[in-house]
């Protein structure tokens, strides 16, 4: 191995800094999945009958479906009966204020850099903190309520706003949509719910922080965001998990509804435990994210994916209303033995709809990174426009980058552009930076961050800084 390759290897073998596990007293269901477990979850959450029925329908659907195998992923068989489908940290029953949050949980979030005290949190960001299967707290609820914004855990929404949930749940991602969405629909435990009334510009960023803590559990959260006419919301999502030797399953569903002229900006920084350099452990991340944009509405997905052993994720926009806009900005890093098969789907239904996809894939170590995207223009979508740009960056010689675009156009007035490039971090670039006095690590980090610039520019400020840091940490190692 040449010196430069060795250095790249060192850079990408950095340790996962959120790998600690917390000793929380956890209420956990026995492993296995059958109707009784679905009923147990529903009764634990004291759900109305319609929701139990919905879950059971999903469970029946899931049993009849098969795991998808079209992705470019090598996955150890998942034993769905070996997992536990319910884990919740035991805590005091009522939370009147942040001071009531279990000190152990608060300590865990402090350690993650997400303080749950409102006065200590990032100014202007409300946080819903989710551990394993349940939401443990939501900050800034009162401030938001003044604006009429509902931001709470999914379970609370089921209790307090059942009509809103019932109307929209499954309206964007139906239970039979795909294998993992069906599984999630049957056993989802918690997640975030967000409702922005007509004409309201949400006064702060909304954020959910997901943490898997318990062993041998799956995490199945469900997020639903409804933006009424002329409203605006920016939503952030962050994730980490302890370092464990077995693979943990995470299968989430996110549904966005942007009504007429509404705008939803959804940003994710995903840093689940990626497994070690031999591919042992790590999160299996199978996520279905989709939004429906009504007339003149806009949905924008921005994701920075640095974690997970397996990433299977295609945030999509159904451009239903005329002149609606869909955007997808993505940075996906696969190092060690990580595999990512990720991209976006833009479904153009309305006239004059526009979508853009900017995807930056970074492969290092033995990582495999696949962009898979679909641009579909239906007959009704007169003058639809799409621009897609997929750039891949290879660090080292044992990783891979693949680009698989699907384009289906049924209306001849559509204009669809696709650009793709593959490059390496040139030894020349590193040498140039080092001649100017920078360490190899700093140079690598600078070049990779430069490669991702267009995507980072889309992130809210705090997240952009976090994303750059995360990318640097993920590439950092024992150099020097």
């Amino acid at each position, binding site marked *: 191995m040449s010196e430069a390759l060795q250095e790249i290897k060192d850079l990408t073998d950095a340790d996962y800094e959120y790998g600690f596990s917390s000793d929380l007293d956890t209420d956990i269901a026995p492993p296995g999945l059958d109707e009784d477990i679905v009923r147990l979850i529903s009764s634990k959450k004291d759900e109305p009958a319609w929701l139990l029925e919905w879950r059971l329908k999903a469970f029946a659907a899931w049993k009849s479906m098969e795991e998808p195998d079209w992705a470019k992923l090598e996955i150890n068989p998942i034993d769905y009966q070996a997992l536990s489908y319910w884990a919740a940290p035991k805590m005091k029953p009522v939370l009147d204020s942040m001071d009531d949050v279990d000190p152990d949980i608060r300590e865990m979030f402090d350690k993650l850099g997400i303080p749950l005290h409102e006065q200590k949190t990032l100014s202007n960001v409300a946080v819903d903190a989710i551990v394993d299967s349940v939401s443990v707290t939501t900050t800034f609820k009162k401030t938001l309520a003044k604006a009429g914004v509902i931001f709470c855990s999914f379970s609370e929404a089921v209790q307090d706003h059942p009509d809103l949930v019932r109307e929209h749940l499954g309206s964007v991602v139906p239970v039979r949509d795909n294998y993992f969405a069906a599984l999630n629909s049957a056993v989802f435990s918690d997640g975030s719910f967000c409702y922005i009334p007509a004409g309201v510009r949400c006064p702060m960023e909304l954020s959910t922080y997901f943490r898997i803590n318990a062993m041998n559990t799956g995490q199945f959260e469900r997020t639903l965001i409804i933006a009424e006419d002329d409203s605006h919301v920016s939503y952030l999502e962050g994730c980490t998990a302890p370092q464990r030797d077995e693979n943990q399953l995470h299968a989430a569903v996110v549904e966005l509804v942007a009504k007429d002229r509404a705008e939803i900006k959804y940003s994710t920084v995903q840093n689940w435990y990626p497994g070690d350099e031999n591919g042992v452990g790590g999160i299996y991340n199978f996520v279905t994210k989709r939004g429906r944009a009504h007339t003149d509405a806009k949905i924008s997905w921005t994701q920075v994916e640095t974690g997970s052993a397996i990433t299977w994720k295609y945030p999509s926009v159904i451009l239903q209303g005329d002149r609606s806009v869909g955007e997808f900005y993505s940075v996906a890093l696969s190092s060690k033995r990580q595999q990512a098969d990720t991209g976006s789907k833009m479904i153009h239904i309305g006239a004059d709809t526009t979508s853009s996809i900017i995807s930056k894939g970074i492969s290092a170590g033995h990582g495999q990174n696949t962009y898979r995207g679909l641009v579909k223009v239906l007959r009704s979508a007169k003058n639809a426009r799409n621009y897609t740009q997929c750039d891949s960056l290879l660090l080292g010689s044992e990783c891979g980058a693949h680009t698989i675009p699907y384009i289906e156009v049924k209306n001849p007035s559509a204009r669809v552009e696709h650009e793709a490039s593959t490059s390496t971090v040139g030894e020349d*670039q590193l040498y140039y930076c080092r001649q*100017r006095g920078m360490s190899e690590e700093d140079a690598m980090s*600078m070049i990779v961050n*430069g490669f991702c610039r*267009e995507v980072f520019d889309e992130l809210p400020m705090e997240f952009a800084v976090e994303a750059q840091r995360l990318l640097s940490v993920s590439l950092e190692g024992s150099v020097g």
Partner: protein
Amino acid sequence: MLHVNNLNVSISDTVILNGLNLDVGPGEVHAIMGPNGSGKSTFAHALAGRDGYQIAGTATLDGVDLLDLEPEARAAAGLFIGFQYPVEIPGVNNMYFLRTALNSVRRARGDTEIGARDFLAVAQEAMDLVEMKPGFLNRAVNAGFSGGEKKRNEILQMAVMEPRLAVLDETDSGLDIDALRIVASGVNALRGPERSMIVITHYQRLLEYIRPDFVHVLVDGRIVESGDHTLALHLEDNGYADFVNHDLDDAPTRPLSGATR
């Protein structure tokens, strides 16, 4: 200042530099001229520490042997290379790059880092030197720059980094006459008693603007002739023919006026 002693460099077992000796005193400007493939650029990159070179000999800058150091440590020791082909770094802001570079060497030398506002003043001065328009610093490093802009950017970087020794590798190549004048006047402004320069070039033209104290002719990996700036004029008239077909065994006996003290 710089003492290069018996420098031998091979790339993939092909000998490129073959016993090169050179002494550069404080404040001196030396020109190295020579035909294509004579090893001029290899000399610059051997000093800077590019990967893939097999190296023997010594090259001390202010008493420190550069050849023992990582490239970034050589930069911190005061070595600056003006690249013949500056690389593009898409997405990295030129200003950010420059400040990171400057602060990296300052840190390595134990100096305090320079803040964004103070840096702006430093950068502005450097911009004026190479007649760069405002906005230049907000573009990505060399990305989409014209040939002339890239070379001016190298001189701008040199002005900011304030090196002890600058090696300018064919800084004149690809420049039109106006760009050449700007680059040369930038270089001249940066001359000083504590800064030495090695100017590598094919053509005498650059040396009309940057008057060197010494001129060396590099052929087949060693310096075969040294003199003052009139040597460059001689080369302009006669080419390298006088030096190219010489018997290599003869070379060390040729006078090394000026270069070796």
